[in-house]
């Protein structure tokens, strides 16, 4: 197969970091090429260079043998390169068809008069051919995340993209939906298109790609045929050392009495929809209950409602038998509910405040850290120094603004603060999203430690590997309800996938 894209010697520097340090990348026509690497390995920078968002400081880009220079994302689009970002670039109030032509400055999108019927017909045709059907007249905000992703792919197909880059596309999909996406990608590759698939999930890379290029610390470390690689060999290429893939540890101690009791919980989502429709669950002392599900099925709202950040419309939440009034985070904190929020940078910490200040974000009211209205600055400093050492927060001293920390260290700050309040319940929402392998190991260790100390852990995650490795029981969410609850030791990915899609348990 002839080469479609060839990047040679790509160097891209940002103040203080070299994001790409001589990357070599080459993908052929008609192949699915995986780009594998930890967070911070330079994958995003590389795809931003390929889509014209950044210009490389050094190195060259060749497309189908010809040297090209992109001055803007428009140039890359004209050259047939499209990207499906992790966070979709769609206009929520617009219809699917309108989103598809948005920014297409060659065809329909450029005309003064838009012919919606013609576009809708074309979108429907494409959807049928590639088996990614979406109603072209639906508004984007009405679509699930999985459907929105289809719109992004339809956009690329409508523009006749020859090279399609997908950044972590499976985060919003069930395993079955992911499989169907992989089929679509194979069909597209079969037509001679080049698919660049960015991921850090090894089994997906193995399932869908022909070849893999592994990046580490801004450099290309290997480019191999997928058939000749194993998950283990890819993982060690990615991390640069031998790693233990997440292993399930069977519980040895029995689960204690019920600590967190949620019954018939209902709450309204941000769009005024019914996000939670009668959820009941119980977590015992020392138990890890995982909530699985495709993103956007009410898991975030569940975490927010239990921790008081969202008002409930019905139902009850009780800790150690004491019911909470709800809708008040302070009440939940006093009841012993610790919370590792999904959005760690803007909810979990105040990003411009220092590490020390963020470590007392919840305890600044306590006698230990305040005397009347005045803060005990020395006690706060000492506490920070102690926690930074105990939780091994690296990257800066107590006075460093939290936003300058890496994701893993930021999460350590959040965990340190939440654990230091001696909680009864820990609600952890996607605690390892976007972290590198080493940081994930650390977070998992802390979660296990918390459970070992008798904390009731509610783990909300979209990562089935993580759930299967950590959880005792798994509750699967679908459209605001628990569609099934299974024992983590005895379930399969297929069973979970069925439940995630709303199917009945087998």
């Amino acid at each position: 197969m002839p080469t479609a894209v060839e990047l040679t010697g790509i160097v891209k520097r940002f103040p203080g970091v070299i994001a790409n340090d001589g990357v070599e990348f080459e993908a052929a026509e008609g192949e699915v090429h995986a780009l594998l690497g930890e967070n911070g390995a330079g994958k995003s920078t590389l795809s931003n260079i390929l889509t014209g968002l950044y210009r490389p400081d050094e190195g060259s880009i060749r497309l189908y043998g010809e040297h090209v220079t992109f001055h803007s994302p428009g140039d890359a689009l004209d050259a047939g390169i499209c990207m499906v970002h992790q966070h979709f670039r769609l206009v929520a109030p617009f219809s699917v068809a309108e989103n598809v032509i948005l920014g297409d400055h060659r065809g329909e999108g450029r005309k003064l008069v838009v012919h919606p019927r013609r576009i809708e017909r074309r979108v429907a045709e494409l959807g049928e051919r590639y088996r990614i059907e979406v109603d072209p007249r639906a508004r984007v905000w009405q679509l699930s995340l999985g459907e929105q992703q289809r719109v992004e792919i339809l956009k690329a197909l409508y523009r006749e993209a020859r090279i399609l880059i997908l950044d972590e596309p499976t985060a919003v999909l069930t395993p079955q939906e992911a499989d169907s996406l992989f089929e679509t990608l194979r069909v597209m590759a079969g037509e001679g298109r080049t698919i660049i698939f960015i991921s850090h999930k090894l089994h997906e890379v193995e399932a869908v790609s022909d070849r893999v290029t592994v990046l580490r610390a801004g450099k290309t470390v290997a480019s191999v045929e997928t058939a000749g690689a194993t998950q283990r060999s890819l993982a060690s290429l990615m991390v640069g050392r031998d790693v233990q893939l997440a292993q399930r540890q069977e519980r040895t101690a029995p689960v204690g009495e019920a600590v967190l009791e949620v019954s018939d919980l209902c709450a309204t989502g941000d769009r005024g929809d019914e996000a939670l429709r009668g959820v009941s669950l119980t977590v015992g002392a020392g138990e890890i209950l995982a909530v699985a599900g495709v993103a956007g099925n009410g898991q975030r709202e569940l975490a927010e409602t239990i921790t008081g950040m969202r008002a409930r419309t019905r139902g009850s939440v009780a800790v150690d038998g004491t019911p909470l009034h709800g809708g008040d985070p302070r009440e939940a904190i006093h009841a012993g509910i610790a919370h590792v929020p999904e959005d760690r940078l803007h909810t979990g910490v105040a990003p411009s405040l220092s590490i020390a200040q963020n470590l007392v974000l919840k305890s600044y009211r306590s006698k230990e850290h305040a005397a009347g209205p005045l803060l005990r600055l020395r006690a706060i400093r000492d506490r920070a120094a102690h926690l930074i050492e105990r939780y091994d927060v690296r990257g800066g001293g107590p006075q460093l603004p939290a936003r300058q920390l890496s994701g893993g260290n930021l999460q350590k700050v959040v965990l340190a603060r939440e654990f230091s309040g001696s909680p009864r319940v820990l609600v952890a929402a996607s605690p390892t999203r976007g972290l590198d392998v080493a940081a994930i190991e650390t977070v998992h260790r802390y979660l296990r430690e918390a459970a070992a100390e008798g904390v009731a852990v509610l783990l909300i995650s979209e990562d089935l590997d993580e759930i299967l490795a950590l959880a005792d029981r798994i509750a699967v969410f679908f459209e605001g309800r628990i569609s099934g609850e299974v024992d983590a030791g005895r379930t399969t990915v297929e069973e979970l996938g069925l439940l995630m899609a709303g199917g009945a348990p087998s």
Partner: protein
Amino acid sequence: MIRVERRLEQPAWLSLAVPLGSVVVSFGVMAIVLVATGRAPGHTFIRLFDSAFIGRDALNATFVSATPLAFTGLCAAAAFRMQLFNIGGEGQLYAGAVLGAGAALLLGNHTAWLSIPLMVVAGAAGGAAFALIPAVLRAFLSTNEIITSLMLNYVAALVVDYLIFDSQSYWRDTSTPDARVFPQGKMLPDAASWPGLHLGGIVLPFGLLLGAGIAALLWVLFARTRFGFEMRVIGDSRRAATYAGMRTRRKILAVLAISGAIAGIGGASQDGDFRHTLDPRGLTQSGYGYSGIVIAALGRYNPFAVVVIAFLIGGLQNAGYTLQGVDFPSGLVGVMQGLILFCALGGELLIRYRLRVARPVREREASA
């Protein structure tokens, strides 16, 4: 080719060097304006400086100009610290002046030790109450406080005018036939005259001392208290504050009330220190509230810096009044103040970004 890059760290010396540099640049631009209008820049600057800061009379007049600016500057700084953009210092100052004058008139000519504190309290209450209108709208309905507080400035100006020019209000002097034809406010009793601190011919108005005291209290509030800590968290990320169990609505109300109260005391100081009557013309033509926003921005919301800058801008305004005439149009000082703000806000860019000379590569900002 020059490239703009985001700074990863912001060195401390920059936060002093950039404002100073901005002032220098604004003087440079001002020099061009002066040359273009046929004046010698060096000579004009020296005259400005002399009439602002050299000699007792100049200094005393500068203190008078600086006093209300210190209050409105602190008013803006207190709210801006929490990312609440209270543009209503102007109206809150009028509200304070109305209630301050009302308290003074009501108490009559008894004792100064009672009149003065009650004027301060009344002024603070007036400013706070007026600031609570945008505060309630913001806290409960998420209405943009910039718009509401700005619009309320016009309301306040019309109310003050109405009290003296269009009604037989308690504040209006109707004792003489003359006063009925040419409306003016009642003169405040002597007991309501705020004393100045006399230091060898230099008179520090009581209001200015009060302003300095408030600056110190604000500093303690910002840096040392739970309240200040909550302000910083809420200002930085309201979601993080809610997450941490902070009462964000209450804090919005409290901070805007404090901010308004400071401007209100500034209004009472206008009554007690300088005007000794409710003087709508004098108040509404000065634009104290708007200058206060400039001053808070220049002082980077640091209360002590705000007082110092209020003094410098007060000097500039005072020099403008003193020098205005055929050879020195009064608008020149306004142009200058605008240039200083423009350069200072432009200079903020240099604190967060740096310029670097590099090979010609067009760049987008690095998303970390």
